[in-house]
């Protein structure tokens, strides 16, 4: 019998279970794209069959970081940029958990860029949602890593001289095994992609376009959007790394030309997750490490195993 009875529980799940009674309403601005992420995530959970008690949502800092306040599950509202290292260790400690990390574009592609690269490289079995609104919102409208070149703000008064980060290209090059882009304005696609990402056994990265009507673009500016899977222009084999790279590059460039391209860009279902790799080489035990602490059993002693080599 599992010590964590919530894990693997098989029952009907109502998406309303994911609305926290203690804080049912979000503080996001009217028209904010973040509502779209919350709704899509709530919608996806019953579909993937995971309950609030077996889900750990780790968030960063910023408007996006508050997702864990408005989504009922075990939550960890961590530090700016550090959601991924917290989340991936929890997954290693207890692989039965459904681990989801979320944060903004500054959080994931700026201050936490190093963790993003390495978590993708390691291919942990988890989902990472990046709220990409091309701006620092909560701190009131500064230029962010995905703001377009030339973006003017109080901290970039002469316009940013930097090219924006290419989130999907970075993700692919780093080793993510599922890469998609969706948009808050397209709730049906967003939920489908979230379901796929959560079900994917590896690092699934979603660049989620979330409009910031207060400091940047409003919803209208993400319409019309094109789903590359439905478009005649693209005939992408999402298992082909080269094709994926080219299509991502196009999508990332065209976003700044006013064309919103979304959909699945890369999917490698065969690459083993980090946990699988580690278990296969005997680096991590088969049983979740966290379970041992709640069960009776012998614990190894250095006196029995290590002291002899020093005598």
């Amino acid at each position, binding site marked *: 019998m599992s010590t964590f009875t919530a894990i693997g529980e098989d029952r009907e799940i109502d998406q309303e279970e994911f609305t926290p009674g203690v804080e049912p309403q979000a503080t996001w601005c009217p028209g904010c794209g973040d509502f779209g992420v919350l709704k899509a995530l709530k919608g996806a959970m019953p579909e993937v069959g995971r309950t609030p*008690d077996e889900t750990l949502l780790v968030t960063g800092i910023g408007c996006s970081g508050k997702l864990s306040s408005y989504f009922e599950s075990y939550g*960890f*509202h*961590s*530090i700016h940029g550090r959601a991924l290292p917290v989340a991936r*260790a929890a997954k290693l400690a207890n692989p039965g958990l459904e681990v989801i990390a979320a944060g903004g574009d500054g959080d994931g592609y700026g201050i936490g860029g190093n963790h993003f690269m390495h978590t993708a490289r390691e291919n942990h079995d988890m989902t990472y949602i990046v709220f990409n609104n091309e701006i620092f919102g909560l701190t009131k409208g500064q230029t962010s890593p995905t703001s377009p070149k030339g973006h003017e703000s109080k901290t970039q008064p002469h316009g940013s001289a930097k090219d924006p980060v290419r989130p999907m290209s970075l993700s692919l090059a780093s080793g993510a095994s599922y890469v998609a882009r969706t948009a808050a304005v397209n709730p049906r696609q967003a939920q489908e992609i979230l379901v796929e990402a959560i079900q994917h056994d590896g690092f699934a990265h979603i660049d989620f376009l979330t409009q910031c009507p207060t400091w940047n673009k409003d919803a209208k500016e993400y319409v019309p959007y094109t789903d590359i899977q439905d478009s005649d222009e693209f005939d992408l084999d999402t298992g082909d790394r080269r094709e994926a790279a080219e299509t991502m590059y196009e999508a990332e460039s065209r976003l700044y030309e006013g064309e919103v391209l979304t959909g699945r860009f890369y999917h490698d279902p065969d690459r083993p997750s980090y946990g699988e790799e580690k278990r296969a080489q*005997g680096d991590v035990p088969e049983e979740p*490490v966290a379970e041992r602490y709640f069960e009776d059993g012998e*614990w190894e002693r250095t006196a029995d195993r290590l*002291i002899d080599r020093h005598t």
Partner: protein
Amino acid sequence: MTDQTLMWRIAGGSGDGIDSTSQNFAKALMRSGLNVFTHRHYPSRIRGGHTYVEVRASNEPVRSRGDGFNFLLALGDSFARSEQDGAYYGNEKVKPLTESLADLNEGGVVLYDTGFFEEADIAEIRLEERAEENGWHVYPMDLRGLAREHGREVMRNTAGVGAAAALLGQDTGYFEELVREAMSGEVMEANLTILEMAYEQASEFEFSHDLRVPTGGHDTDQALMSGSNAIAYAALDSGCRFIAGYPMTPWTDVFTIMSQNLSEFGGVAEQVEDEIAAASLAIGASHAGVKSMSGSSGGGFALMSEPLGLAEMTETPLVLVEAMRAGPSTGMPTKTEQADLEHVLYTSQGDSNRVVFAPGNLEEAYEQTRTAFQVAYDYQIPAILLYDQKLGGEMRNVDVDFFDREPDPSLGATLTEEEISEAAHHESGKFERYRHDPDDGVSPRSVPGQTGGRFLASGNEHNAVGHISEDPDNRKAQMDRRVRKLERVRAELDDSEHSHQTHHGPADADLGMLVWGSQQDTVFEAVDRLNAAGHEVKALGVSDMLPYPETEVRGFLESVRECVVVEMNATGQFRGLTQKELGQYGEKLASLLKYDGEAFEPGEVVEGFESSIDGGQPAAGNMRFVPAAGD
């Protein structure tokens, strides 16, 4: 004691196998019944650069490096740079000989490799003349040639050990035993031959020295290990099954030992992208219900500042170890110092809320690492073990029985599902993980995956279920509760049967020395010598940095007229902490400081103390005396 003490130094270059040879030498002496203690000196360089290890051995307990040394085995630096006009590093090739001779005691023995040091080198450093002046006994031997003839050149270390054994009147039995245990086949045979040949060849010298390996005997089985071993083993015995880290000297030793053993112990070791990630992973694993640790040295620990604060705020149990080296910045990577005390006590934004222990020796390192885990999980507070390059790297023999302990896998204040079902919940169904009311400040936690335990952990100020709240009353209640935990830790440590503080010397002495961390046993040896020389001095070794052991230190300071605080930093950080915590004694506390990268020798402490009584600066070494206020 000095007369019966062997202080043997093996000197060569990095990459010449100096460290492993010295460990074998120390182990052989330990097996022969002696107490041993090693002191390592090495440069921040993969190959080449003067490296040495001293092995102090005696039939009496040895708990410190000695004053200088009395036997030099000079092998030479195989990876030395060529001497060039204008280059500041001079003739690196001869440094294992020249730099070591500067510290060799009068009447000492020099065994050097003529296969490496040529006649011109020896003439250049005036070895013959200096030997005459200092009463050294010099034995040149072609160790390299011997190794080459019977095996390979790298086996010259074995030849050196064989020759040293002969000169010291030690038979080679224990050395042979170690070769047989570690090697096999042709390599073993070649080493055994070289050991024997070198022994025989050195026996042919006409010995002019009296120094011999003392004889001794142990009543109990002994183990030779480092402070880093003790820290890692305590973590494993505490049920720690997760470590994340990034390499940095000298913390790497603990990280390596844990990484090599954790999978065997059913745990997980992660080498990650940086120290921010390392501390954050330890938090993530601990949050998910696994006893976890991370660590680094000063620079890496600086990156852990923000996660450390997150652990304080979310009350995630966490153990960090910090292995100090000489700073600031990259400083001197392989040299010891005690200058990160203030860094570790106060880093991270907001009021700090953590426990910090600085063990004084190997046994204390083990005990206090265990206490760190216990406190961290019982009180949901970060506990930091602060040590340094010296304590981490020095090796000593210790009773095997010392490690015969019960493991402690307790997660402390963590509930089972059954307990959660009976615990208080908000009407929305969320578990009240951060209640205001616990007397001891500890509000028990649940772990993700447990039915009915949902809560939000947040680095923002939060209410009972963890949701973000900036309500002033809630803020005050939560701050008060978190601060209360530290006071409870203080009470628990004060009530403990085994204080982390160690008294040494006659209780009625009216002069005192305060010491913290790794310099403790060196100071205690100095105290013994000072009392033998007619002074009346006692010392207190302090390990609890936070919560500070007010009562014990106050009692000690009240009992002495004057007190010298001995520490390895330039600004007297522990003296400052003591004055801050006790709010007085500025007129009683003087400082004896050293910050040149080399740990105190007991003789230096003696000299520093004696000159301080006269109000003067110590003449020897790079020590600095800072008088008490008003003096």
